[in-house]
């Protein structure tokens, strides 16, 4: 029924199967949309946030998906600026994943604020000293860049491409894409960094506070670095999941291994910097403010040293060690395990920098406050996942996302 829209040289599942899958993802999406409207109309009392947890699941989700979406800017940087030509075979998917991540982040932010209709105040009454202002501006600008990067892909649809104007527009946009890739990398450096700065500048919160360079705390650089390191792992993990779902090889191993190798080395250098940062914070910064490191990891029923181990060792050292060795990269199981561990590692880092910051008591007579999200928070956090799946399904079906697919899966 929709064969006229399907790219040449590839095979897709039947429209019925596609529609059933779409309906399942759509049902989850609607559940999230319902929760979203509850939050908008009834207010944030629909959540389990409270005055100790002003930042909670949503801000974590924002930080995590922006870090995971970092694969778009870094792959674009490698492809267009550093000239890694092989990556042209995965850049489309990286851009699509980035587009999903950033549009989701903006949506979650729109739900998360107490007065959604005043969202524009962040631009109009901007406080230039606030890291969140920098986040808002760079995030919005970069989302526009991602949209510009995604448009040529849409224009490559078989039917749209038949229109001469769109065909030429697509061609011309491709030829100037290096400019947008550079702009995206520049913007990403700042918003990924300022998201790190959001926590690092909190001098009233010793768990988050870091010294730094000029106005930027070390977390600024660590967040940018980690997004560049871990983002491509998410792109590769989603690629692998897509291959498993479609039961097709979509990207050649040499492309995957190249991106995995670069990601691995970025991760290795990042995790060394992170270990130094943690060591300095635990032994110099926190003690100078009167805190022993165990203050942050004891006297509560959840946060212990295990989370530091999970983030740094299991989610950082191990995947980096796998990906920087040729043997590790070439072993499919080890490589994919490394991707999963890396994604867990960066998500735990963002969790710690948001939720543990809120949980730790600062006044000596205050207490730990733990939190679990309400179903409305969970539903609105799953909403972007469902939206992402739907966008990937539609894009994969109707757009030539994977240039190597026809070659790897010849149609008889």
């Amino acid at each position, binding site marked *: 029924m929709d064969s006229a829209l399907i790219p040449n040289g590839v095979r897709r599942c039947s429209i019925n199967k596609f529609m059933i899958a779409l309906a399942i993802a759509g049902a989850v999406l609607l559940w999230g949309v319902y929760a979203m409207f509850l939050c908008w109309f009834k207010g944030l009392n629909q959540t389990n946030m409270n*005055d100790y947890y002003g930042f909670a699941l949503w801000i974590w989700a924002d930080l995590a998906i922006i870090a995971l979406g970092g694969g778009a800017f870094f792959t674009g940087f490698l492809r267009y600026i550093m000239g890694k030509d092989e990556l042209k075979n995965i850049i489309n998917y990286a851009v699509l994943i980035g587009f999903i991540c950033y549009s989701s982040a903006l949506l979650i932010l729109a739900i998360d604020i107490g007065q959604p209709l005043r969202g524009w105040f962040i631009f*109009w009454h901007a406080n230039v000293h*606030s890291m969140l202002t920098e986040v808002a501006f760079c995030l919005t600008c970069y989302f526009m860049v991602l949209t510009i990067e995604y448009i040529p892909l849409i224009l490559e649809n078989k039917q749209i491409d038949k229109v001469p104007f769109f065909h030429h527009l697509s061609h011309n946009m491709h030829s100037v894409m290096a400019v947008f890739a550079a702009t995206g990398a520049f913007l990403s450096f700042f918003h990924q960094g300022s998201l790190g700065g959001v926590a690092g500048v909190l001098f009233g*919160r010793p768990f988050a506070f870091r010294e730094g360079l000029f106005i930027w705390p070390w977390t600024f650089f660590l967040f940018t670095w980690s997004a560049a390191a871990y983002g491509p792992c998410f792109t590769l993990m989603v690629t692998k999941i897509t291959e498993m779902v479609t039961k097709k090889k979509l990207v050649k191993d040499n492309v995957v291994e190249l991106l995995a190798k670069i990601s691995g080395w970025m991760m290795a250098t990042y995790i060394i910097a992170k270990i130094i940062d943690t060591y300095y914070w635990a032994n110099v910064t926190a003690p*100078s403010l009167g805190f022993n490191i165990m203050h942050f990891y004891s006297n509560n029923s959840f946060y212990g040293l295990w989370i530091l181990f999970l983030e740094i060792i299991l989610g950082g050292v191990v995947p980096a060690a796998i990906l920087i060795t040729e043997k590790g990269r070439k072993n499919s199981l080890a490589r994919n395990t490394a991707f999963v561990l890396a994604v867990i590692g960066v998500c735990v880092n963002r969790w710690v920098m948001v939720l543990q*910051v809120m949980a730790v008591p600062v006044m000596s007579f205050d207490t730990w406050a733990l939190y679990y999200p309400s179903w409305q928070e969970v539903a609105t956090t799953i909403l972007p996942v469902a939206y992402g799946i739907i966008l990937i399904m539609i894009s994969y079906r109707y757009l030539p996302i994977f240039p190597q697919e026809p070659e790897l899966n010849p149609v008889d």
Partner: protein
Amino acid sequence: MKQEQGHSKAKKFGMVIDLDLCTGCGSCMVACMAENNVPFKEDETDKLKSITWMRIFKFSNGKTYPETDVCYLPRPCQHCEGHGGHSPCVSVCPATATDYDAHTGIVSQIYTRCFGCRYCMGSCPYKARYFNWFDPVWPDGMEQYLSPDVSPRMRGVVEKCSFCYHRYQIAKDKAHYEGQTEIEEDAYQTACAQACPVKAITFGDLNNHSHAVSKLKNQPNAFRLLERLGTNTKVYYVSGREWVRRAGDNYLKAEWPKKTS
């Protein structure tokens, strides 16, 4: 900001709270809520969603009877100055909805500009900022008792202690009307300070040597909460009990008794 007429020196309004006098009766909390139209809910069992501009913390020395001792610590917004007005909350607000007034030292909150991102709450180590999770609803007829000098806040914005700033504005207007260039110490007092039955709370201009607070804050037993973080607050506490003074900040084991340079 508009210059105040005839004031050559900036004021720094602040408090000194004597913790050895405080009995934890809660009068200050009640007075604060009534004075500032602080909303409440039908069900206030979840204290982490209760708005208490003034909150009393209770803590003990951790010893058993007969050596056990309890301290009640009233905690309003500490009106941090940080370094040069760089308060933890003011510097992070993305929409300039909270401001440090260099003329009074008061950290303000602009409710109509706040869009409810709650970053300021995350930045405050004193947990002195509160979010309106619910619409403010008062029991029938109680609207008549609301103060006309303080605007009630809407759902979805952050609020906090303002050192009863509306009283400062009224005192200034009165002084101007009476041809005075300075307001008297008694002319501007916060509701909590006036309500305290044991006079544990003293309020005034920390920079004015004729105000009681400027002397009380220099007592040897005076301290501020979390001074080591560099928040540079304007609420001082006094206690003759060493364990209470120690509880005011965080110290490594080897650091107490406090070493003086």
